């Protein structure tokens, strides 16, 4: 397979050459959960912490200037990476979950003065059955706080969004539609335009949970045309502790603040405050400084490799994996079985040749302990989706730029062994 130089890339990720206890090599197929970090990101963080660190914005001395410049440069990089029309539309949060909560708390907030964020009884919020809990629970809370109704798109047997009732589901009462750009279980890449078009017709806002999209393919928010996207640093070769909310400037201006504290204000009196413009309005307190800087370097790294090349590489790997897994009898892929509109996340259930269900925890345990293969097992923070398919859990292999077909072969061998143990 051609595309990117995977062997060179693997050398950038120290952990990939690690030996696990018992002499097992590491085969990391859990990047959908969290990705590994290249030495460039790790060393940039270390260098900043060692020699340039101080607080940002508020510190006017030499280190303060260096830290502030590095932090705000990271914002520029991320704005460029996602094609944001303005750097001020990029808000640093601690993760994607905070980003989504930030938007959800803007709805029906007594401090809100904008009609679009008004939410109360009779109003509706629309999500989907394939969402990560981080794009479900915040909306449940918003509905419970305000008395609004939460509704959702169903999922087809093939693992696609069921849009057959789009016009009924998204209607004049709908204030916001929030859905996954790419499913963290099925791998499904959702088509945005029909939902967006309908939302525009009825005047609803649209948030895209791009946590599983931004790491894996070129994303351009101007092209997408939605109102908000959320994503998270640790899934895109960046550090933990940093996430991003992108939102249209005009909406960010209209939204009430979320967390109160230092640096998000313009002026404070004991009884009232005025607020800084976005992005600072939404960044209360000392931000994850070194984490944002690390994410900036992660974005440089991904850009250097090339997002189109990463997308193509994962496309090839996914095709290979779907083919190889489909040859295991008793293995059932949950989600699209073809590579069309799908990313490199493959979830499945496994039976013994005798038809006995092998629980994903047992699959994962044996893959890990015998072969050093790291997959994720469970409901992957998408319990309703698993309920929809009538299964408590799946085993999930998720691929990224540093994975190889050899690793997929190892997974297949491992799964055969699991079947033997339980056979």
């Amino acid at each position, binding site marked *: 397979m051609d595309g990117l130089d995977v062997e060179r890339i693997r050398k950038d990720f120290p952990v990939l050459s690690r030996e696990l*206890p*018992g002499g097992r090599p590491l085969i990391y197929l859990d990047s959908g959960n969290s990705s590994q970090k290249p030495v460039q990101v790790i060393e940039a963080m270390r260098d900043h912490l060692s020699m340039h660190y101080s607080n940002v914005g508020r510190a006017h001395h030499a280190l303060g200037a260096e830290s502030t410049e590095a932090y705000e440069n990271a914002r520029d990089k991320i704005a460029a990476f996602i094609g944001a029309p303005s750097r001020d539309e990029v808000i640093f949060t601690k993760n994607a979950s905070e980003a989504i909560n930030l938007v959800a708390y803007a709805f029906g907030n007594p401090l809100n003065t904008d009609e679009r964020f008004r939410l109360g009884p009779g109003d509706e919020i629309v999500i989907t059955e394939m969402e990560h809990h981080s794009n479900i629970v915040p909306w449940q809370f918003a509905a419970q706080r305000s008395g609004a109704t939460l509704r959702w798109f169903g999922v087809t047997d093939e693992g696609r969004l069921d849009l057959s009732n789009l016009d009924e589901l998204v209607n004049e009462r709908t204030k916001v539609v929030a859905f996954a750009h790419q499913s963290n279980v099925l791998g499904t890449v959702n088509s945005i335009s029909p939902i967006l078009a309908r939302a525009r017709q009825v005047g609803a806002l649209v948030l895209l949970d791009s946590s599983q999209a931004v790491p894996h393919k070129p994303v351009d928010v101007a092209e997408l045309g939605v109102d908000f996207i959320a994503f998270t640093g640790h899934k895109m070769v960046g550090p933990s502790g940093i996430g991003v909310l992108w939102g249209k400037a005009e909406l960010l201006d209209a939204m009430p603040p979320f967390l109160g504290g230092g640096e998000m204000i313009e002026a404070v009196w004991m009884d009232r405050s005025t607020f800084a413009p976005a992005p600072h309005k939404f960044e209360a307190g000392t931000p994850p400084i070194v984490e944002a800087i690390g994410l900036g370097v992660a974005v440089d790294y991904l850009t250097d490799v090339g997002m189109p090349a990463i997308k193509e590489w994962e496309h090839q790997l996914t095709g290979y994996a779907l083919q190889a897994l489909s040859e295991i009898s008793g293995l059932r892929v949950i989600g699209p079985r073809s590579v069309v509109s799908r990313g490199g996340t493959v979830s499945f259930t496994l039976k013994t040749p005798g038809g*006995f269900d*092998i*629980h*994903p*925890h*047992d699959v994962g*345990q*044996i893959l*890990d*302990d*015998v072969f050093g293969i790291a997959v994720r*097992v*469970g*409901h992957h923070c998408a*319990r309703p989706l*698993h309920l929809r398919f009538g299964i*408590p*859990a799946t085993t999930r292999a998720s691929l990224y730029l540093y994975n190889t077909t050899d690793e997929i072969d190892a997974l297949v061998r491992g799964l055969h062994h699991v079947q033997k*143990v*339980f056979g």
Partner: protein
Amino acid sequence: MIAESMYQELILEHYKHPQGRGLREPYDAEVHHVNPTCGDEITLRVKVESGKVADVSYEGQGCSISQAAASVLHELAAGSTVVDSLAVVDEFTRLMQGRGTVQADEEVLGDAVAFAGVAKFPARVKCALLAWMAYKDAVVRSS
């Protein structure tokens, strides 16, 4: 092979052929326990008659460890006395939480000694304990 020591013949046997599975009447207490990190669930009922455990019935879903542990629990507790069965629960808990450094008392544990290997895997200890904690809870509630 590190993990294989965990998947003892006996555990797999219980997993594939669970003993006493199903929810039965009559019962004094029913509890529902969940392991939120992995989604394993168990509904468990106990029937106590003058200090003896007349029945332990259960229904659940989960991995081999959690299901086998429920099956072994049924075997050990049903027909035993409440006092004796709780002693087994305590010894089993001690073994599981010992991070692989605790020597199991085979006298007390019987078949449950097969789970000794699980203690080395913190993430799986909760699986092994799910049914047993549910049992303890149910016994408390039944009195």
